[in-house]
């Protein structure tokens, strides 16, 4: 029997030690009325059969579309060393590091990951990871509510609509008031945000770059929020921080984001990585695990999970969050990726993405009927206006071998003709050119 080492001889010896004649005796507590003789499932398959079956199934997914689809999830190249190192089974088959002396590899990696997140965001403390960018934003909103004792949250409509859906779903049974502030021309409406801020507001939630691709400096909005004793939560695209003003510099109080772009495959939606960072003053209200440095009896540096009094296994129903297993291996991938990029590579990658996106804009804006929105600066993703329904165009572009982008009409009424286009370092000049030609061809 695969994966079960017990031989007949072992079984006999073990049953004897236990003092029963058969294994069935060990299930005596299960009521006879509910016992089953077997599940209605097919017999087990050999390893090669499983591989062939799933390999064939994988071929029923596309894998040769040229991708300009982003929407918060990006097709960046994953350096070989990320896969090689993260697939060391000493990492991926390890348990949660509750016994620190047996888990220094994982714990030191988490500590280094926390450091990397702080350094790219200019924040003071980061946790060990959350599930994904969307749930991280929900955790940040709840954290702001705990910190302020207020229940109203302002939500910029430039925040990823999937994240906003998550916020609404999770808080349905809790008394949280969301006030959504619509963006104008793809940018945050500062006047309406400022007018809506009051002493009942727990936090303003912003995203940079926003879902339309617009880059902003929210320092003034955050300043206005602070004047009302209100916190600022900012969701960021980590790759953009190689160039863009950091949330820490803008004065943000809680920073979250989707870490998929840091060396994680797209994998049809997961596993991904939610990251979260904040100020030290707020650390005790932060959800999730935290690795901290300490010493052993001989003065050697080591790492442990700490401040566990915030967590569910100690506080039960009074915990900061119910999170337990998180995304440690994904955090490790992000750390390896950022370490491989290094100080110079992190900046260069952002520069390459921005430059290629700008080049794509020049190519696309030359197509008759296509207008590249220029109301705000952008990073590697931007909005174009088409002369017809963007969903139709995307569908026709699939036939030509391109994932052309994300049609904004799916989430924004009145934006049916708008398409969100993303460009990463993987897109060559030739591919961008072919994309422009194909788009012109289908219009």
């Amino acid at each position, binding site marked *: 029997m695969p994966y079960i080492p017990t031989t007949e001889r072992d079984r006999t010896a073990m049953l004897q030690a236990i003092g029963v004649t058969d294994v069935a005796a060990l299930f005596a507590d299960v009521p006879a009325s509910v016992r089953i003789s077997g599940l209605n499932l097919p017999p087990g398959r050999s390893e090669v059969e499983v591989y062939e079956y799933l390999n064939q199934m994988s071929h029923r997914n596309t894998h040769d579309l040229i991708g300009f689809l982003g929407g918060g999830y990006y097709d960046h190249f994953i350096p070989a060393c990320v896969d090689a190192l993260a697939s060391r089974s000493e990492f991926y088959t390890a348990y949660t590091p509750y016994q620190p002396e047996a888990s220094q590899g994982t714990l030191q990696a988490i500590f*280094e990951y926390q450091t990397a997140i702080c350094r790219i965001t200019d924040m003071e403390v980061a946790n060990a990871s959350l599930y994904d960018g969307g749930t991280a934003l929900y955790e940040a909103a709840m954290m702001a509510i705990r910190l302020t004792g207020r229940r109203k949250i302002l939500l910029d409509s430039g925040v990823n609509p999937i994240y906003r859906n998550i916020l609404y779903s999770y808080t349905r049974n809790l008394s949280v008031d969301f006030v959504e502030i619509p963006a104008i021309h793809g940018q945050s409406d500062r006047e309406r945000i400022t007018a809506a801020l009051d002493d009942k507001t727990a936090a303003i939630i912003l995203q940079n770059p926003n879902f339309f691709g617009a880059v902003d400096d929210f320092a003034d909005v955050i300043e206005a929020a602070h004047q009302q004793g209100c916190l600022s939560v900012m969701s960021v695209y980590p790759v953009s921080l190689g160039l863009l003003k950091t949330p820490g510099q803008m004065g943000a109080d809680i920073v979250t984001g989707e870490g998929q772009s840091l060396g994680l495959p797209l994998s049809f939606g997961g596993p991904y990585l939610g990251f979260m960072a904040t100020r030290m003053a707020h650390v005790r209200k932060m959800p999730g695990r935290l690795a901290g440095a300490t010493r052993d009896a001989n003065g050697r540096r080591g790492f442990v999970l700490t401040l566990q009094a915030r967590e569910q296994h100690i506080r039960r129903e009074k915990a900061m969050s119910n999170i337990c297993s998180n995304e440690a291996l994904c955090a490790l991938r992000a750390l390896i990726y950022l370490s491989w990029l290094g100080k110079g590579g992190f900046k260069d990658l952002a520069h390459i993405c921005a430059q290629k996106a700008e080049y794509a804009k020049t190519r696309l804006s030359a197509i008759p009927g296509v207008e590249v929105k220029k109301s705000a600066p952008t990073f590697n993703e931007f909005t174009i206006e088409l002369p017809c329904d963007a969903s139709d165009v995307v569908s026709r572009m699939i036939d030509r071998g391109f994932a052309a982008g994300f049609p904004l009409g799916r989430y924004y009424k009145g934006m049916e003709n708008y398409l969100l286009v993303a460009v990463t370092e993987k897109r060559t000049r030739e591919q961008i050119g072919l994309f422009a030609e194909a788009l012109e061809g289908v219009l």
Partner: protein
Amino acid sequence: MSLLIYEKSAPGRRAANLPRLTPVEAAVKVRIPAKYFREKEAELPELSELDVVRHFTRLSLKNFSIDANMYPLGSCTMKYNPKICERVASLEGFSSLHPLLPQLRGGGMLTQGALEVLHETERWLGEIVGMDAFTLQPMAGSHGELTGMMLVAAYHHDRGNRKTKVIIPDSAHGTNPSSAAIAGYSVVTIPTNAEGGVDLAKYEAAMDGEVAAVMLTCPNTLGLFERDILKIAELAHQRDALLYYDGANLNALLGQCRPGDLGFDVVHVNLHKTFATPHGGGGPGAGPVGVKARLIPYLPTSIVVKREDGSYALEYDRPKSIGYISSFYGNFAIILRAYAYMLLLGREGMRRVSENAVLNANYIQARLKARYALAVDRACMHECVFSASRQVEHGVHALDVAKALLERGLHAPTIYFPMVVKEALMIEPTETESKEQMDELIDAMLEIAEAAERDPAKFQALPQNTTVGRLDEVKAARDMCFKA
């Protein structure tokens, strides 16, 4: 002492080998005003690729792992993770698939393989636990619990029930009360009786019209099958309270009986426990949730449906749904591994898992009970729970026993849980450990019991054979040093 990666940085060194811009691309002016730029570069390390590779290779060697060590961790089901499951998860046709593709017109047809994996996994899990439908969105066990409690809330809300409480035994995982509270419920705790089960009289007294749900683990965290389960279910259903199954301990029941047949209405399953996906040093996991038919309308958006022509599609228009639990379809690559594992096991394999998991736990229980105090002396299921109370008489605590095992190169059991047992040592061998490996653990624990009587003072200094000695946790909490 091992240096942090930041302490190894040498200015000017570089691993990154990025594509170069062509002259035409480089010539275009990026129109981001200077005020939007970060002030100074992020202080990431400057290293060669070999530096990076060596750093993480050496770090990896400071870990225990299933591939090198047995983890007898109760409630964690640390079984072997078959390598073939890793290989299928990295197939390009799955790993490069963008999750927004199905939201594009015509995009669903580009993801038929992935949608079939989701649909089939739901079907298999439904049969295994006796549920009518599944959502694969939850990304961990506790995430599944929260999803389950949100489903409970939606169900009662829809029926106009005013329910405010959730009943949870005191032996439950900490995530249970925490998840119930986040879903907006207050928690009523029921004590454990002398046989290790739910105190039925106290349960019956607490069961009133305000109870929305009862959260149970079966076998419970004492490793014991809940003998009164059918009565517990009946009492709950009489009051229109739903019965929630915490699937952390499902390994004991695979192919023997199904939570759905025991009366459970909502179930979460830990794919990273029962279905052999790796723990990753603390995730990613996956916590799919199954429900009986009457709860299907409330399942999260989206759900996978099979059309009449045999193709698969995602359904978003679900007016009674609790909404979005994860951004997409859950931890897909984890779900895929679990699906591969289920295909490998098949019908007969499932049953052998539970048989051998239970046999192994009882073997350890039988051999250790002469030297360690059993929490409840009856046949256990997939795990056994001892108390270090006899060792404590000599000043040796559960923590000391744990560290003495680390000293011998063996991972410790779960300690100080369940909280209803003082000085708990909770051992779950799983079905994938051999008798020889279990004997090594048993012999070490017997030796430790003896040493506890003979030389208890020595324990404080343990472990010494590990990469660091016993770490000062108080100092860590006081210093609050979370980054370099």
